[in-house]
């Protein structure tokens, strides 16, 4: 079942080509008089790609990319560290968890778009208000998973560790943390995307630079090509961050038996 890397890459490219082809057809071949993907709303793949190239060639993108990257990485790190810490804390203090449970859920339901002005008030217009927006997304995703992950620790392994005389800190390091790790990483894969979304939405709602700013500018003047080019860069970008997360994951989870579904 294990795919050869070259074959895998080939299949992946095939999917991309197919998607682009469908896009091209939808944008240029009318079906029953209507375009499925009217150019006004979807642009055309060729245009988008050449815009992406242009952005990189002229170099305008770098400044924006750098700002968005900083925001995303900060949001991701702060949000996930916060989620892990609070998640562990809640999982280990059932009373705290029970008392705050409804409030955590309430805060998670607040639309971040509405919170943006408040972040700007507190944190100014710089990167930090965008980071804050990203953090509010990342935090909850990581938090809920870590909280559950800690509760899923094998009772026998835990009992054994406690009988060895581990104190709370040692239990954390040697039992809860490694055991909750796969839960945490699962949430991190989701969170990477959301960190970026948070940063971009923050920029979109008020900023002077960043990919979100670019997209917002393009949207205001019906420059769909620009919007799609921005989104494409965003998306490519998240793969890079996720690649780092996956590397760290692989490193930290060496001890695991191969997942059942990966065997034979």
């Amino acid at each position, binding site marked *: 079942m294990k795919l050869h890397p070259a074959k895998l890459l080939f299949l992946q490219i095939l999917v991309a080509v197919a998607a682009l082809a469908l896009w091209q057809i939808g944008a240029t071949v009318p079906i029953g008089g209507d375009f499925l993907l009217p150019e006004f709303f979807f642009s055309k793949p060729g245009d988008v790609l050449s815009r992406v190239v242009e952005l990189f060639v002229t170099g305008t993108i770098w400044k924006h990319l750098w700002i968005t990257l900083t925001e995303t990485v900060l949001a991701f790190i702060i949000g996930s560290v916060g989620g892990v810490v609070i998640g562990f804390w809640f999982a280990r203090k059932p009373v705290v968890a029970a008392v705050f449970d409804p409030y955590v859920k309430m805060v998670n339901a607040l639309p971040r778009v509405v919170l943006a002005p408040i972040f700007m008030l507190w944190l100014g217009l710089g990167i930090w208000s965008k980071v804050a927006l990203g953090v509010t997304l990342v935090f909850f995703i990581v938090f809920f998973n870590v909280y559950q992950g800690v509760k899923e620790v094998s009772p026998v*392994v835990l*009992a054994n560790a406690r009988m*060895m005389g581990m104190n709370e800190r*040692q239990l954390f390091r040697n039992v809860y943390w490694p*055991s909750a790790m796969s839960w945490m990483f699962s949430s991190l894969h989701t969170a990477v995307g959301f960190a970026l979304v948070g940063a971009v939405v923050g920029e979109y709602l008020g900023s002077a630079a960043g990919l979100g700013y670019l997209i917002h500018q393009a949207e205001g003047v019906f420059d769909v090509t620009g919007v799609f080019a921005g989104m494409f860069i965003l998306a490519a970008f998240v793969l890079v961050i996720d690649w780092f997360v996956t590397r760290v994951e692989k490193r930290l989870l060496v*001890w695991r038996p191969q997942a059942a579904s990966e065997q034979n």
Partner: protein
Amino acid sequence: MNAAARATTAEAPHAGASLAVALDDIAISFAVKGRPVFNAVAPTSLHVREGEFVAIVGPTGCGKSTLLNATAGLLAPAGGTVSIFGEKLVGLNARAGYLFQQDALMPWKTALDNVAIALEIGGMRRADAVAQAQDWLKRVGLARFTERYPHELSGGQRKRVALAQMLIRQPKILLMDEPFGPLDAQTRQIMGTLLLRLWAQDRKAVLFVTHDLEEAIALSDRVVIMSAGPEARIIGDFPIDLARPRDAAEIRLDPRFHELHRMIWSQLKAEVAKTYGDDMNGLEASS
């Protein structure tokens, strides 16, 4: 019931000596959803003196593991008290080491780390802990498997890692739940001898659950028999008056050994028969 239980209280022969473990009238119940409470262990008592090696035998599912869990402080008894070295046990039993019946190694640590951590948490420097752990893994025959993760070991190898993990801390009370179950007869004897030597060193108290009556007699000072559950109690208490030090293999040739074996076996057999009296009508027990 209470009186009957008392009548067969497994009491240390020399009641005056200080007690390492004293289970007094303890009863243990489990809440099972949608059913009446399951009284696994009826009020029963068991005393283990310092330096005493007590083996517990009994039919499967009678409550041996449950009793060890209560002694370890992992399970709160529904009634009665657990005292450790004269003090009432609150929370975990910090003086005991526990070898669980199930796999309890940390899957994210290698065999070596699993053993070394037992010392490291006490504050020992890592290098020293590792050196000792290496030595212990060698003693249980796993010198070549130190870098393996638990899922890369066989069942018997995992058990031996767990054994090293418990023994390396040299706790004053050893709780062992079928420690030699998945080992071949030969390895069992080697491990038994290892255990006896350690035990002799500084008067550890041992509670040893096994299904192998010969092993129980060969190793212990007393063999305690539990009745079939529910409401299991201790119904037999046999002092083993074989000379020490013993050799786990040779002792089996001793005539007194056979006498004891016959004696205990006959009571045990009756007890097991009772279990199947209820449940095994479909099958004629063949003994």
